């Protein structure tokens, strides 16, 4: 009886949410059609509100069919974005880049703070084998795949074999990037705890360092292949070392400062996190330090060298709830639907090959590391997602090799879009199947009562 009541109540709640979503869409649709000439700042405010509200509501509705909240946010952005209903215009999507910066800073901080030394020790063996095999096997397979499939794209069909190999090498390295944001988004929603969740977090966060090094190395190797001139430069290695050491040094300092603030003041954390997200990211870019790595190190320091880790995680969670919805919904709105429509066959093929390579690399590494059965079965699922990091690197590569034109970046966007949509669903499914999601505790955590302004 009680379950029947609960069931009908749930249906009623979903109906109310669906109705509210319809009202939201209709209201903004009416306003945009009444004043089609008005774009820019005036449209941005309503656009952000739409992304936030529609993302929240759609994620709740999709939850009923087992999809992660993240998919709801992305879908809200895609539907409301410039290529479908045009409720959110290109200007708004561009205007929201500071929100992306803030979200990525929060994700990196949270990711670092989630990594405990004790946890890393537990998974050290699995992690090292997986890191090596995932980087090498996926990188090599995707380089070969791109070398052969690239001929079927309009951009690379005319390239000679050597430059084509350079392009394929870059694609191979790009393929080993994962999505810390998707991982954190799913873990934050599900509160999953267990071998799969622990492995995913440890692998994806630490792979950021490996990716930075490999991308830099690949660009050094690819430059003479693509341009047909130049060679290896010691300066590039120096720059890379400077970037890595600078990031670690800055992150350690920031972590200690944050810990001191948390201990001595402990209030107004929302504003402190906003200042870090907006101000420090800008500053780090200026001094050529990798912001993601620096923030991750800061979170790691707070968690492992001080007793303030939980407080920091709680503050980020409270701040991030709203920021992440806008971030992912904006990522959905940013999705270039016409481009995806144009390149989906080749992009999908590359994604399938990447998925298979990831799965194969995981099978081998988990067998060698003697992982527990549940990790052997589902450990690969978190490694499919790709998002901001891959897009950022594709832009870096496109800027470094202007001769490639927009082709490389366009194909990367299309492939990332597919991985971005499929990856979180796979990871959530795996966590559910592995029995690591704890919906009751997740609900309890949602009733925390700290208002963002006072976090």
């Amino acid at each position, binding site marked *: 009886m009680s379950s029947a009541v609960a069931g009908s109540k749930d249906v009623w709640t979903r109906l109310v949410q669906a109705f509210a979503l319809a009202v939201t869409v209709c209201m903004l649709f009416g306003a945009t059609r009444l004043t089609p000439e008005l774009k820019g700042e005036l449209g941005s*405010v309503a656009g952000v*509100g739409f992304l936030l509200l529609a993302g*929240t509501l759609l994620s709740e509705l999709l939850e009923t069919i087992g999809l992660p909240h993240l998919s709801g946010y992305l879908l809200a952005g895609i539907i409301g974005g410039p290529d479908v209903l045009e409720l959110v215009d290109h200007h708004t999507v561009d205007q929201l880049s500071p929100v992306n910066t803030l979200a990525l800073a929060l994700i990196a901080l949270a990711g670092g703070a989630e990594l405990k030394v004790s946890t890393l020790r537990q998974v050290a063996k699995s992690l090292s084998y997986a890191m090596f095999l995932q980087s090498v096997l996926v990188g090599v397979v995707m380089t070969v795949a791109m070398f052969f499939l690239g001929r079927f794209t309009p951009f690379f069909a005319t390239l000679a074999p050597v430059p084509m190999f350079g392009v394929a090498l870059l694609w191979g390295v790009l393929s080993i990037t994962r999505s810390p944001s998707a991982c954190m988004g799913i873990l934050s929603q599900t509160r999953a705890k267990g071998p799969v969740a622990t492995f995913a977090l440890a692998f994806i966060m630490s792979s950021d360092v490996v990716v930075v090094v490999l991308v830099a190395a690949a660009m050094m190797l690819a430059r003479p292949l693509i341009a047909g001139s130049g060679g290896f430069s010691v300066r590039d290695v120096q720059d890379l070392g400077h970037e890595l050491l600078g990031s670690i040094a800055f992150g350690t300092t920031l972590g200690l400062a944050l810990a001191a603030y948390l201990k001595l003041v402990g209030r107004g954390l929302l504003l402190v996190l906003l200042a870090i997200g907006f101000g420090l990211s800008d500053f780090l870019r200026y001094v050529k330090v990798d912001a993601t790595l620096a923030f991750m190190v800061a979170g790691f320091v707070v968690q492992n060298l001080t007793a303030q880790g939980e407080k920091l995680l709680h503050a980020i969670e409270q701040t991030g709830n709203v920021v992440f*919805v806008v971030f992912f919904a904006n990522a959905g709105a940013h999705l270039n639907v016409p481009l995806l429509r144009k390149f989906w066959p080749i992009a999908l093929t590359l994604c399938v090959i990447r998925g298979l390579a990831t799965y194969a690399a995981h099978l081998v590494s988990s067998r060698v590391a003697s992982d527990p059965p549940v990790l052997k079965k589902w450990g690969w699922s978190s490694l499919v997602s790709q998002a901001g990091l891959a897009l950022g690197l594709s832009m870096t590569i496109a800027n470094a090799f202007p001769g490639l034109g927009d082709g490389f970046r366009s194909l990367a966007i299309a492939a990332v879009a597919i991985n971005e949509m499929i990856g979180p669903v796979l990871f959530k499914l795996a966590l559910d199947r592995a029995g690591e999601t704890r919906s009751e505790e997740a609900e309890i955590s949602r009733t925390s*009562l700290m208002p963002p302004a006072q976090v």
Partner: protein
Amino acid sequence: MSGGIAVLLGLLVVAFVSSMLVGGRTIRGFGLPSGAEYLVLGVAAGPHGLGLLPRSTVHSFQPIFACAAAWLAFVVGLGYLLVGRRRVRLGRAVTGIFGAALVGAGVSAALFVTLDALDILHGFERLELALGAGFVGSETTRHTVRWVAERHGARGKLSDWLADMARASALVPVLGLGILFAVAPDAPLGAFDLSVRVGCTLGIGVVMGLVAAVLLGREFRRDESWGILLGTSLLAAGVAMRLGLAAVATLFAMGLTVSIASRHRLEIKYMVQPTEKPVLLPVVLVAGACVDFDSLPKLWLLVAVALAARLGAEVVRGVVLIALLPAARASGPRIGFGMASTGAISLALAFTLLVRLPGRASSAVLLLAAAGVLLGELIGPAELKRALEAAGETHAVDAESDVAPLSLPSSALHDSDFGERTSVSDFPEARR
């Protein structure tokens, strides 16, 4: 680091300081009730002062602060009918609205006649200046009553009346601005009748308020509630701004709707209330930076006329108050001066007008609002204290004591430190 980021960081520092001022019993009473010190800081940092906030930078942030002003209107609307857990009494609310309308009408009439006599501005601009200055000058900041009550431990019928009247007075400037925006000649909905435009201004707020109330109605989960509240309010404000309507009036209507329709009105109120000062004071600072002392000829004469008209109207309000309330008789008509404190909300509204209808008239309205805030700060709290002393209501309770909100669950008190943030004046009945 870009100039925009530097300014943003500076404003975050202001918001940080403001958030520190919101809570903590150790520094309660610190700062002025109207937030005039932030106004002066803004003027000093603005283009007319040290030039730390250049005009172009301020201009680029204007839409964000217009949104912030709309959020403040939402917070005001949400708490419009409630003082702590107590509902505002109807008679007092009507008196408060009538008093504010009287003051606003007095200021508007005086300015309109003066503008006509001096032949300054014509057509809609003249109307905009006269009505705009009247509207933004009609409010009595509710913080003044609270501030005086807290400092002097006041309690009694007169303090409650004045608190209710001050709270009710916010309706006049917000609705007035809603009408003014609707009659503006370049409104995107110009093809529609005025009543439709005003109806849309309030209707969008009511619809989104109902949506928020329904979504928050079943389960109150705070993290999700923030997404819903921010989403609905940004959407409502954005749609109103896009249609050229007053987002402040829309969000005020939305807040009022939520407070009427949601069974979680108290929880929502206590959830959003701590955001008021961290949002308000940066808005005041930026409004201060936008104050232009040269927008019109003979501007200082207009300032003098507006302030004199306000004080005259306050005396009339004092007479009305004496007639209605025996406790007010001891202080005489001067009690009206105690209601002369306009606050940061007035400045935020004037700033909104400047963003929506940039020009000489709205610049002058902002200056008049700033002058009103400074005048109110000089005489309002002192006169209010005098009136409460004359009525024998000061030192009725220990101003340092705190009372926790009785309606909230203990977990809420524990988690959100509300015990530290709420004050005696928020829960008058709990003290008795």
